């Protein structure tokens, strides 16, 4: 690879739409690669020069007629000679498959949107029904009470009885609200010894495909020597997943700069560990910062505004802090820090929107 000598099959010439026999150079290849994916070519060449064993990339070509092709490249270092490494690989035109996938993703997200709206609609209707029943009693009793008092002579005993019922129905309505809160209240924390970098790696593995599809360049900087934390693995992973998705979503419409996403774990003083997710996306308005973590506040067309609110309550249940800052450049940084020490009394009865609600959210999302 030192001399960058490249030999192509006929088929590859056809995919790139080059004259057969044309000398293939990296520069010539670069003229076909989609401008937004050019960084991948540089990265691939860097990795090859460093002698990586396998190379695997998905990138696009921008053809002279403006059409876009999707290619899947797989290469393996087969032998080394004096001049350096030799890679043998295959390139597949996956344009059809990619179009089918995109149609599927589109259909799936429309379906998810419908499902989310439906489930919210169903929820709203059942709340309305549950509250309307005692309200009907309240209004009827209060009307009766007023009529009894207005009668000549006033029916004091009857009025007193209907007033008593009004109070009782009022309490019933408030019990409905309490039950509703219980419904949203999460399960208790299941605390175990957790390596924040390791669980972050698991989340990354889960979302890599999604991030690649959104053409996000993920830069993990995970500290392998982090002290363990006592925490609920699944709940923390939900927070990490949520921050990653938000960062990816925030960059969905960014063109003209690489969609870089930094995810970093590090010690934070002697007794805390910190996870940071930094994107170069749309960010948020400075005055919005107080509202970011409120339930039902959202900047996304399809969002419910639950993710960050739930994430913060999970982190607070771990006696930690989740915060957001605007970057000096474009985008935003979200970061949480949790103590390494025991989190035995971590269950906070005040946290009403927690993992259960978020589970439901993700079930719908991943439909």
């Amino acid at each position, binding site marked *: 690879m030192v001399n960058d000598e490249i030999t192509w099959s006929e088929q590859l010439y056809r995919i790139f739409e080059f004259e057969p026999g044309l000398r293939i150079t990296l520069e010539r290849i670069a003229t076909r690669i989609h401008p937004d994916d050019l960084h991948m070519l540089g990265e691939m060449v860097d990795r090859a020069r460093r002698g990586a064993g396998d190379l695997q990339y998905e990138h696009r070509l921008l053809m002279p007629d403006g059409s876009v092709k999707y290619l899947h490249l797989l290469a393996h270092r087969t032998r080394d000679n004096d001049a350096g490494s030799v890679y043998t690989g295959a390139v597949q035109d996956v344009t059809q498959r990619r179009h089918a996938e995109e149609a599927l993703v589109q259909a799936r997200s429309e379906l998810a949107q419908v499902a989310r709206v439906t489930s919210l609609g169903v929820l709203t209707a059942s709340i309305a029904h549950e509250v*309307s*029943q005692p*309200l009907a009693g309240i209004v*009827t*009793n209060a*009307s*009766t009470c007023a*009529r009894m008092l207005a009668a000549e002579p006033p029916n004091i005993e009857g009025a007193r009885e209907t007033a008593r019922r009004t109070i009782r129905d009022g309490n019933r309505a408030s019990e409905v609200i309490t039950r509703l809160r219980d419904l949203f209240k999460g399960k208790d924390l299941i605390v175990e010894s957790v390596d924040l970098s390791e669980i972050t790696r698991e989340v990354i593995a889960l979302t890599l495909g999604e991030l690649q599809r959104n053409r996000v360049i993920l830069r993990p900087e995970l500290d392998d020597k982090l002290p363990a934390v006592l925490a609920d693995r699944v709940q923390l992973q939900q927070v990490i997943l949520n921050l990653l998705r938000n960062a990816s979503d925030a960059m969905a419409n960014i063109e003209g700069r690489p969609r870089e996403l930094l995810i970093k774990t590090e010690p934070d003083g002697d007794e805390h560990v910190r996870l940071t997710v930094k994107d170069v996306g749309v960010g948020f308005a400075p005055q919005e910062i107080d509202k970011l973590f409120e339930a039902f506040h959202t900047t996304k067309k399809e969002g419910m505004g639950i993710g960050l609110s739930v994430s913060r309550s999970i982190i607070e249940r771990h006696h930690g802090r989740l915060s957001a800052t605007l970057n000096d450049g474009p985008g935003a940084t979200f970061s949480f820090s949790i103590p390494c020490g025991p989190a035995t009394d971590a269950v906070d009865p005040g946290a009403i929107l927690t993992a259960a609600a978020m589970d439901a959210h993700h079930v719908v999302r991943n439909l």
Partner: protein
Amino acid sequence: MMSQRSLVSVVDDDESVRESLPDLLKEFGFDARTFSSGQEFLNSDCVGKTQCLILDVAMPGMSGPDLQRELKIRRQEIPIVFITAHRDENIRPRLLEQGAVECLFKPFSDTALLEALNAALQVNWTTGVSRRRWGNTIE
């Protein structure tokens, strides 16, 4: 005097409605009886005497519209005022089309209820055939 009061029957599975409505109906000058299900009403001795039925739409077992159909089959055409906690605007025209006098969404005001009851009793006075049949049943 009491015997001349019109009887309004309330069928609703919700207890707070069954508890609160009779007092208001008595304030309006009606006689009132309550039933927690359509079956309980059908089994009672009030079917022939009821001049207006205040009927909940959604109930476990026999629904409000189910009871309405059953009464039609039995040729007991009592004017019906539906009440429902499901604020679904589509349901109202459907129920009115099937012969209901009114459909009120819970919570409803006392004046809205009184208007509906007056309209229902108006129906009573104008449908002479029904009146005679009730008269016979009462005897």
